[in-house]
């Protein structure tokens, strides 16, 4: 008869190591992470020390009109002689900030309302009515196309970056309410929530710890993708000429696109249209890849699966059991701890 054995699981690795392995297993999301990092660092540099990356001021006349791309003007110059590359770079912090501001405020407001509407939805009680009202107001907002609604709101709130960001934010949160509420409804009836309740955990703690942690993954992924979507929406509004103006002291990609397509024939100077267009595209693309990568990181199941599939991981091994008791015996006697004594 074989000696009794017990299974010893491999020890968990350091989180940084795990992160690196997941990234190595999924090169595309690694690319996304790097791209977002580069975009973020660039934005900070442009904000803090613009002279390092931006050769010209936004409305500085270079003397050359419709110059072709060259070392001096990497993306050429426009009809007024402004350097396109400088303007694209100067727009980066603003556009990124708009993306995070709108998606972030929508996440906070919509996420909170969604948690409440999903978790406290017992019909017939006060909380049931609250959740019902939240959902109906959400539905009313969702029944308008958000772009049209945001445009209409800018008429009321006024022109410029601030009012437009506010207008988009006001139309953006209902999607988060729907998403978070749906996820909460799926999670709240799972046995582990009831098990936590049976253990005497308070409802508030169940919501903030158990539920939030389990709905976090799809919400964070959606948020990351959403930063890109906000960017596109803002650019669309700016393209029409409502939000930001170009040329102006603070350039913006959507406004640049709108100005260039009105003033320059695209066949003659394609690089002018391509510059802000490509900037929007690359930023949105980077955040999409980041979203996919986050999905893998946040879910412990896929995270471990990745680790196992890539790293030459120590498999669970069978080791002989010292004694049938519940605890390994402490080394009390002489020679009991000597590894050579047994074999």
């Amino acid at each position: 008869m074989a000696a009794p054995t017990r299974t010893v699981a491999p020890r968990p690795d350091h989180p940084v190591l795990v992160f690196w392995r997941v990234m190595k297993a999924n090169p595309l999301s690694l690319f996304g992470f790097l791209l977002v990092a580069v975009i973020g660092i660039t934005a900070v540099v442009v904000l803090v020390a613009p002279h390092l990356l931006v050769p010209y001021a936004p409305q500085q006349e270079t003397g050359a009109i419709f110059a072709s791309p060259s070392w001096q003007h990497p993306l050429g110059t426009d009809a007024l002689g402004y350097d396109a590359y400088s303007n694209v770079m100067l727009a980066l912090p603003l556009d990124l900030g708009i993306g995070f501001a709108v998606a972030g405020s929508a996440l906070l407001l919509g996420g909170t309302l969604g948690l409440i509407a999903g978790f406290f939805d017992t019909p017939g009680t006060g909380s049931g009515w609250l959740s019902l009202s939240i959902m109906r107001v959400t539905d009313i907002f969702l029944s308008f196309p958000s772009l049209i609604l945001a445009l209409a709101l800018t008429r009321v709130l006024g022109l410029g970056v601030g009012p437009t960001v506010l207008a988009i934010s006001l139309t953006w949160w209902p999607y988060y309410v729907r998403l978070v509420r749906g996820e909460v409804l799926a999670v709240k009836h799972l046995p582990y929530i009831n098990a936590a309740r049976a253990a005497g955990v308070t409802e508030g703690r169940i919501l903030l710890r158990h539920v939030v942690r389990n709905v976090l993954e799809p919400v964070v992924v959606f948020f990351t993708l959403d930063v890109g979507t906000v960017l596109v929406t803002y650019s669309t509004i700016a393209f029409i000429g409502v939000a930001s103006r170009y040329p102006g002291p603070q350039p913006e990609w959507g406004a640049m696109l709108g100005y260039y397509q009105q003033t320059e024939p695209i066949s003659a100077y394609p690089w002018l249209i391509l510059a802000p267009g490509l900037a929007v595209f690359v930023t949105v693309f980077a955040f999409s890849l980041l979203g996919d990568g986050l999905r893998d990181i946040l879910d412990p199941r896929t995270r471990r699966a990745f680790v196992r599939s890539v790293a030459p991981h120590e498999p669970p091994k069978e080791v002989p059991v010292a004694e049938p008791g519940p605890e390994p015996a402490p080394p009390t006697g002489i020679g009991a701890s000597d590894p050579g004594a047994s074999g």
Partner: protein
Amino acid sequence: MTEPVLDVQDLSITYTVGAGVFQAVSGVSLKIFPRRVVGIVGETGCGKSTLAQAIPRLLPEPPASIGSGRIIFRGTDLVPLPKRQLRMVRGTGIGMIFQEPLNSLNPAFRVYDQIVESIQVRHYREMGWTRSFQGGENPFDYSKPPITASAATSLTRAVVPAGAAEELVRDRLQSRSDYRREVLEYLRLVRINDPETILGLYPHELSGGMRQRIMIAMALSAKPSLLIADEPTSALDVTIQAQVLTLMKELIDEVDAAILFISHDLGVIAETADEVGVMYAGRLVEYGPVAEVFQSPRHPYTKALLRAAPSTYKSEGPLHSIAGSVPNLSRPPAGCRFHPRCPLVQEVCRGAPPPLDPVDPKVPKGAEGVHRSACYFAAEVPTLP
């Protein structure tokens, strides 16, 4: 005579689903005394899980609702309690082990976090930082004044010498390493090898048997005075079932809790319980010491159930089944609910439901721990095949 930990009196529970009202549990009375193990056995749908979840009031209400009856836990009726106070009973008062070890652990938390949460709930209540259930006359009174960590520190620093103060504060506060030590203790209690490694693993990295052990450790770490095990072995395969069952049997002797053990498996109940209740269609039909009930059943249903249980050791031709089918609980049969399938049925069985009376006519009706049967012809049951 000691007070029972749990005294369920004439409990009825209904589910309102659509237009139908299902009488899941009807008029069940049950007493559990300290350190006793009571088993409830019955077919799927007989109301045993509903009963188990109704005791700590974990049933979703609605659709479930407690129609009548009292659930007296350590002297306090739980039925009229508001949600806030019910929560203080759960965990440290009544602990629960669920049927599905796969889904009863939070997939996003490591084993350590799952168990430490339960320990924290108990610790905070013991310290008086959160209110807790005390039982008795004023169940929600503070037994100690609430002492916060900072209050304890400032208080002791001013009055007592430094060393003594430290010790006092250490009594009241638990550091991370204290929690870790306690978690390890409970993992060892449920016979988990290499607990230091298991601590850091997620539920999906554990086997079904391991997960059920973690569940048991979680429930025990709150030190409940009543532990309800709702089919703890049913979702496991046979060899793991045996392991978990052995563990449960060993723990029954080690922990200071009364246990309500729900199962559809007669063998499991026979091995673990001191007393057994047999449920049929929402009613308790027979109750008594395990050996008596299983060796000389006094209700036709129990008799048929025991006959239908396949034996591992002998093959005696075809398997037996009980003729007829389980009644629809939205329109249960009048009188004894087993009468449409009963070989001993007479006119009286269709009238009033038979009371759960002692089978021995000499025993007084209110006696504790005696063999009882809800059958008008209990004396004739032994003559059945």
